[in-house]
Every structure is written in C-alpha cells, then in structure tokens.
C-alpha cells in the first residue's frame, strides 16, 4: 500500500505544533496501524530525522495507552477496537491518513501524538477504590452478588481509560469514563461504603480538571473500544442525585 500521512508534529508541550505530510510506500495491508507507524519511524531514524512520538504499550487492546485520532475518529475507522488492534486493510491503497492527538484541555500534548492523561489518574485517586481490611481473604459467599449486577459491574470495569470518549465527545466530556468507574463499584455491595463520597469527589475533580459537560450525543459510546454503555452515565447521574439529596 502507498499512503500519504498527515501527522501532527509538536516538539514539546510548550511549542506550537503543525501538520507535516509524509509519503509511505510498501505497507502490507496485514500490518497493524502501530506497526505501520513503526515502519515509518524506522525510515525517519534511518534518514536521521526525528521519529513520531505516540503512546503504546500492550498492543493487544487492554492497556489503554493508544491515543490516536485517525481520520476524524478516535482509534480509527474500525468499531470497538483500539488503534493497536486496527489493521491497514481498513484503508485503501493511495489513502491520505490524518493522525492527530486527543484534543482536550485536560489532555495537553506532551510531544507529537502523545498526550498527558494524568487527569484520569487524578479522578481515580478521588474515589476509584474500596475499603478492604487487610488479613486473610474472606469467604466469597459471605457477600452475595446477583448475576445481573456482577455482569453489569464487569462490563463497566472493562473501561481501559484510554480517553477515546473524551476525544470523541464534541464537548471533551469525561462522563463515560467517570460513569464506568462509578458503576463498577455502585453495582456491588463492596462499593457501597464510600459510594456517596466517591461520586461527589470524582465529579468535582472531573469538573475542576476542565472536562466539558455531557450533552447526551453519545459519541463516547459509539467510539468506546470496550463498548461501555451510556446507561452508565444515567447511573452516574442517579448516584450523584442520591448522594446530594439523600
């Protein structure tokens, strides 16, 4: 495959970035998207040029490090995958691919396509935990959990915190991420102890960090590689209302 790449290049957090156009040839359709970028970077290095910086780690869709906005969609044109699971066969020979970093005030660009997602860590620090006494593990059947709730909690816990929801949202809202983190605890008895404080503190931090407000366009749900449902956002709203009123 022969491709034209338009890549956002930014020297560091303080610099003003710009798009640079590159040509790339001999790319196999069976390459993953990140492998294509690896090949591109090898060529850059061999020509003594600065390689493109991008986040990646596990390359199997479970770590949440990918953060590429490809041709107008977070994680590219495939559904329910991260950029590392995206293959070049999803593109055509001769295509122009525009690659941008996540754009949100709380996600500043560090360099090129790499953004700082510490904002998510700060939200988790405010309540993404439960109180457990140290010591031997208790008998699992002491606290019973319904099958439905266990599965819903697991679905919410599938969130890998990549930030595609923020990147896709026209308001750069983090509601889907926060709602998944709230839901995975709210649905389980173990999560009830800090439930009220958790939701209040996590929402407060989300707002303070400068994420936008949810306007229910559901772009987050459409782009989430882990198919986190919008019903979690409704649960977050319910949890928040109850915590404030009751």
């Amino acid at each position, binding site marked *: 495959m022969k491709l034209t790449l338009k890549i956002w290049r930014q020297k560091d957090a303080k610099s003003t970035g710009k798009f640079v156009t590159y040509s790339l040839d001999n790319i196999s359709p069976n390459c993953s998207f990140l492998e294509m970028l690896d090949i591109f970077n090898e060529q850059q290095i061999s020509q003594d040029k600065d390689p493109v910086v991008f986040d990646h780690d596990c390359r199997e869709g479970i770590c949440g490090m990918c953060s590429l906005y490809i041709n107008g969609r977070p994680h590219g044109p495939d559904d329910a995958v991260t950029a590392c699971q995206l293959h070049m066969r999803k593109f055509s020979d001769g295509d122009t691919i525009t690659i941008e970093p996540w*754009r949100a*005030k709380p996600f500043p660009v560090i360099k090129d396509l790499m953004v700082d997602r510490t904002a998510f860590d700060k939200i988790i620090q405010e309540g993404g935990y439960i109180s457990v006494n140290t010591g031997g593990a208790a008998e699992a059947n002491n606290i019973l959990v319904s099958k439905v709730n266990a599965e819903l909690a697991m679905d919410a816990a599938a969130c890998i915190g990549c930030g595609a929801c923020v990147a896709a949202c026209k308001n750069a809202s983090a509601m889907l991420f926060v709602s998944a983190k709230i839901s995975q605890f709210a649905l389980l008895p173990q999560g009830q102890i800090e439930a009220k404080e958790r939701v209040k503190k996590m929402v407060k931090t989300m707002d303070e960090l400068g994420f*936008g407000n949810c306007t229910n366009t*559901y772009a987050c749900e459409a782009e989430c590689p882990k198919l986190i449902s919008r019903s979690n956002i409704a649960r977050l709203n319910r949890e928040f209302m109850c915590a404030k009123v009751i």
Partner: protein
Amino acid sequence: MNSSFLRFSSITKKIWMAFLGIFLMIFLVIHLGINLCLLRGDGGAWFNAAAHFMGTNYIVKVFEVVLFAGFIFHILIGIILQIQNWMARPIRYKVNNKTYTPFLSKYMIYTGGIVLVFLIIHFMNFYFIKLGWVSNPHISNGEPDFYLIAPELFIQPFYSFLYIVLFIILGFHLNHAFQAAWQTLGVNHPQYNNCIHWFGTLYAILIPLGFIIIPIFFLFIR
C-alpha cells in the same frame, strides 16, 4: 467563573436543565391547547375565555413568574454549559469528527438560540401588548383581544413562513431534548428506553405540527 452559581457541578446544572426543560415541555402542551381554540370558529369565545383565565387567575399569575424563571434559567444554564464545553477543547481537530451521533444532538445551542429569537418576537407581538408596553388597536377595557390580533399576524405570509420554520426548528430541539432530559435524570433502562424514544419523537412532531396548523389555517383555509 467564581460566582457560586457557576460553581454548581456539571451534573447539578444539567439536572436543573432537564427539570426546567420538562416543565417547559408541559407548558407547551397547555399553550398549544389554548392556541388551537383559535380554530373553533366560535367567534373567539373559547380562546378569549382561556386568555382571560390565563391573564387574571391568581394561581396562573404565580405560575407565570415560575414560567419566566424557568425560561431564563434554562437559557442561562444552557449558555454556561456551552461556554464551558467550548473551553474544554481550545484546539480543535483538523478533521471533523466522523463519529455517528444523532445529527441534531450536536446543535442544541443553535436550535435553542433560534427558539430564543422567536420568543423575543413572540413577546413583542403578544405579551408586551398585554403589559401595555406595545400599543395595539385591539385593546378593550385594558385587555387585548388576541383573537383579533393573532389572525392579523398570520395572514402575513412572511410572518407565517417564519413561524412555521421556527416551529420546525423547535421540533428538532425537542426531539433531542426529551430523550436527553430523561437520560440526565438517570432514567435509562431497557424496559423504558424505547417508550421514551418513541414518545419523545411523537411529542417533537405533534406539538410543532399543532402550532404550525394555525398559520396554515389562517393563510389558506379561512
């Protein structure tokens, strides 16, 4: 951005937005009911009786204040949320977002803005006459005769065209608003979602249609 009003959390503001939106949607049904009395051909008996009741009843007068507050806060919170949303992405994407979303859900601030312009025109044509701020020949015993004032406006093709277009835009606004309000209030369950979706769509079609019938009646039928 440090006033206590702005410091309310994003979800609190949205919950207020949803409650006020639902309140305004209920008001629209009442308003439509009164407006449709114009079509009865009873010389304005029903319409003027309803207008008189709305203008003089003390409970309605209290609700009038609540209604104005509802409008003002709905608009104000909407503007604040939108400004915060714009600020949350200071650098825009080069390639426009291609994610599938319900088309009109992205343009609520714009459809809302157009509805606000209509509201101002509507106030100048009706409410300000009632307050005596705008003069009109059809005022007897201090009470304006809206049964005569309304047709005078609707027989003007440009006014009627504008009225119809604005109500179509209001329909777009309501279509997303109805469903979004329930989602914001935490009502999202497989058992109710379809019902909310279809009722919302039906509401967003029937209410504007009801209002649109009136200028069509005066332009082409009467």
